[in-house]
C-alpha cells in the first residue's frame, strides 16, 4: 500500500530531474506537467475520467476531445418520448470541465497511433499523449436487420443516441393516429442500457394513454429474456393494461428485415406492419475503437479489468459501453464507476504508485410512470482478474412494494440524473 505524500513526491520529482537525461518517463518537476492524458468522448465515462484525474492531480495535463458541441444524455431520454421532459433538459455544455483545467477540444478523432502515441482529428489537429482514455460509447451494426442502415434510421429512428433521433421519434408519435401500432425492435445482447427498451415502451404508453388510448406498443425482441422483466410486466399492466405487448424472440420477435418506406418488418414467423417503428440495432464498440484495433472478434474492447488499460495496446484505456467489463452492464452508472477506477490507475501510473484495488458500482433506475420507479443495483470487485458482483449486494426493487416506495424510486431516478450529470459536468 504505497501512496505518495508530498515528501516522497518531491523526492521522486527531484530524482526525475537528475535522471531526466536517462529518459525517465513523465515526471519532470513539481508544479509542471507530469504527463499528458487525452480523453476521447465527453460522455458518462470520458467526462468523469477527465475530471477525476484533474481533481486528484492538477499536474497532469488533460485534453478532452468530443465530437459534439454539447452532450445529450441517453439516460432519461425516454421521458422525451412521453413528453415529461425536453431534450434541452438532457443537454450539457463543457464549461464546468474547463473550470477543472481540462482542455476541451470540439473535434472528431479519426486516428490513434498507438506506437507513436499521437491522436489525429478530422480538422487536422495532432495531439501526442502519454496515456489515452477511449470512451466512445457504442456504434450500430447496420444491416444486421436487412434494410436497416443509417439512411433507414431517418425514417425508422433508433433513438438510441439521444438528440435529433429522440426528437424524430417523438414527432412520429405526435403525428400518429389514435389506434396506431408502435413497434419497438429490441436488440440482442450485449447492448447499451439493458432495461432501456422496456422503459421506453412504458414512456411511449404513458403518452398514448392520455392522447391516443386506442393505440398499442409492441416490443419485438431478439431475446427471450430481459432486464427487470417481472417488475416491468407488473408496472405495464398496472398503468397501461394491455396496451403493451412483448413478443419474445422464440415467439416470433426476431425481425430479419425491414422495409422503411412500407413500414413493414419481416419476422421469422410473420410480417408486421407498424405506424411508428423504432429499430434499436445490434451494437458494437465505437468507431474509433475499431479504427485503432482495440476490439476483439466480437466487436468489443478487451481490457485489464483492474485498470481498464487495453490488453491490445499499452497506455490506451477503454471505458464505458465499448469495453468488456466482466459482469457490469453497459450503463451510465457503470461508465461513471469505470471512469473513476481508470482515473485512479492513471494517477498511480504517472506518479509511480501501486495499482489501487478497484471498487465498482452500478445503479440503474427505470421510470414506468411518473410516480413509479424501479431499480437494479450491484457492488462489484475484482476476482481473479474479472469484475464480479459481490454476493449478497444489489439486486432488484422488490416485486411487491408500497406506492410510497415506487414513488421514492421515481424521485431517486431523477435525483440520480441530476447528481450523476453534476458529477460529470460541474
Amino acid at each position, binding site marked *: *500500500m504505497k*501512496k*505518495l*505524500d*508530498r515528501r516522497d*513526491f518531491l523526492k521522486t520529482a527531484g530524482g526525475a530531474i537528475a535522471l531526466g537525461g536517462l529518459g525517465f518517463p513523465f515526471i519532470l518537476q513539481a508544479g509542471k506537467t507530469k504527463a499528458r492524458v487525452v480523453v476521447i468522448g465527453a460522455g458518462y465515462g470520458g467526462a468523469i475520467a477527465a475530471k*477525476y484525474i484533474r*481533481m*486528484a*492531480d*492538477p499536474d497532469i495535463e488533460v485534453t478532452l476531445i468530443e465530437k459534439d458541441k454539447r452532450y445529450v444524455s441517453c439516460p432519461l431520454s425516454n421521458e422525451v418520448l412521453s413528453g415529461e421532459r425536453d431534450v434541452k433538459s438532457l443537454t450539457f455544455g463543457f464549461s464546468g470541465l474547463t473550470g477543472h483545467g481540462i482542455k476541451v477540444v470540439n473535434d472528431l478523432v479519426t486516428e490513434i497511433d498507438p506506437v507513436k502515441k499521437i491522436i489525429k482529428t478530422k480538422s487536422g489537429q495532432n495531439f501526442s499523449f502519454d496515456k489515452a482514455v477511449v470512451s466512445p460509447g457504442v456504434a450500430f451494426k447496420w444491416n444486421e436487420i436487412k434494410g436497416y442502415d443509417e439512411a433507414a434510421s431517418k425514417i425508422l429512428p433508433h433513438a438510441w443516441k439521444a438528440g435529433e433521433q429522440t426528437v424524430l421519434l417523438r414527432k412520429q408519435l405526435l403525428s400518429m393516429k389514435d389506434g396506431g401500432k408502435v413497434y419497438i425492435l429490441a436488440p440482442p445482447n450485449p447492448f447499451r442500457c439493458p432495461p432501456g427498451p422496456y422503459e421506453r415502451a412504458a414512456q411511449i404508453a404513458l403518452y398514448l394513454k392520455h392522447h391516443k388510448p386506442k393505440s398499442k406498443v409492441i416490443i419485438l425482441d431478439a431475446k427471450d429474456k430481459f432486464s427487470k422483466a417481472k417488475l416491468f410486466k407488473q408496472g405495464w399492466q398496472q398503468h397501461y393494461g394491455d396496451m403493451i405487448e412483448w413478443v419474445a424472440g422464440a415467439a416470433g420477435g426476431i425481425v430479419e428485415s425491414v422495409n422503411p418506406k412500407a413500414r413493414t418488418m419481416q419476422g421469422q414467423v410473420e410480417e408486421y406492419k407498424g405506424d411508428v417503428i423504432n429499430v434499436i440495432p445490434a451494437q458494437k464498440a465505437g468507431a474509433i475503437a475499431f479504427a485503432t484495433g482495440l476490439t476483439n472478434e466480437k466487436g468489443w474492447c478487451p481490457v485489464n479489468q483492474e485498470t481498464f488499460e487495453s490488453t491490445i495496446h499499452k497506455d490506451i484505456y477503454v471505458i464505458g459501453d465499448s469495453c468488456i467489463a466482466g459482469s457490469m452492464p453497459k450503463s451510465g*452508472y457503470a461508465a*461513471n*464507476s469505470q471512469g*473513476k*477506477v481508470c482515473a*485512479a490507475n492513471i494517477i498511480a501510473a504517472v506518479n509511480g504508485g501501486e495499482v*489501487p*484495488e*478497484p*471498487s*465498482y*458500482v452500478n*445503479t440503474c433506475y427505470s421510470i414506468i410512470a411518473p410516480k413509479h420507479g424501479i*431499480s437494479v*443495483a*450491484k*457492488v*462489484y*470487485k475484482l476476482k481473479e482478474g474479472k469484475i464480479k458482483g*459481490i454476493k*449478497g*449486494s*444489489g*439486486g432488484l*426493487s422488490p416485486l411487491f412494494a*408500497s406506492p*410510497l*416506495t415506487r414513488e*421514492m*424510486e421515481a*424521485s*431517486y431516478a*431523477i*435525483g*440520480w*440524473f*441530476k*447528481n*450523476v450529470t*453534476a*458529477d460529470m459536468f*460541474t
Partner: protein
Amino acid sequence: MRIKKITCLGIFAVGLFLTSSILTAKPRTPEMLSNTCAGCHGTNGASAAGPMPIIGGMSKRYLSQTLKDYKSGKRPSTIMGRIARGYSDLELEAIASFMASQPWVKAKVKTNGKMVKEGAKLHAKQCETCHENNGANTGELPKLSGQYPDYLFGQLRLFHEIGGSLPQPTQMRKRIQKLSAEELDALSHFYASQK
C-alpha cells in the same frame, strides 16, 4: 493540499489494511470506495439533487451507523440496503470517514417562508432537545440545517408510514407519528432554511 489529503487517507487505509488483511489481500482505499457513491450523492457527497441527501461533511458517527443500519435492514430503504451489503463494516466506516472529512455544501433551494415559520415552532417544541441549534449540531446526530427539504420530507414520510421498526429513538418515532404530512413538510422547509 490535495496531496496532504491523500496522505491522511493513506494513513487511514493502512489502518484499514492491518485490520482487514485476513479477508482481502489489498484493501480498497476510502477514496476508491467513496467515489462510487458520487453517481447518486454528488461529487464528494455534495448532492445537487433534492431527493438525495448531502452526505459530504455529515457526522462520521451518524454516517457509519446509518450505513450499518442499512446493511442490516434495521433502517428501511429502497436501495441503500442493497448497496451497503456490498461492503464490509470496515469499508462502510472508511466511506463514513471519507464523507465526514468533505466540506458541507448547503442545499441551494428556495424555502417557503410561511412553512419555515410553522416549522420553526414545531422544531422548538418537538425536536430541539436532541437536534440542537436548529439542527446544526453534528456531533453524533445528522446535520439537518441546510439539508434538502425533499430528502427530509421523504424520510419523515417514510418514518411516519413505517412507525414501529426504525433505528430512531422511541420518542422521535412517537412524535413523528403524531405530526401531519403538512407539519412534516413544514419542518423540512425550516431545516433547509437554516445555515
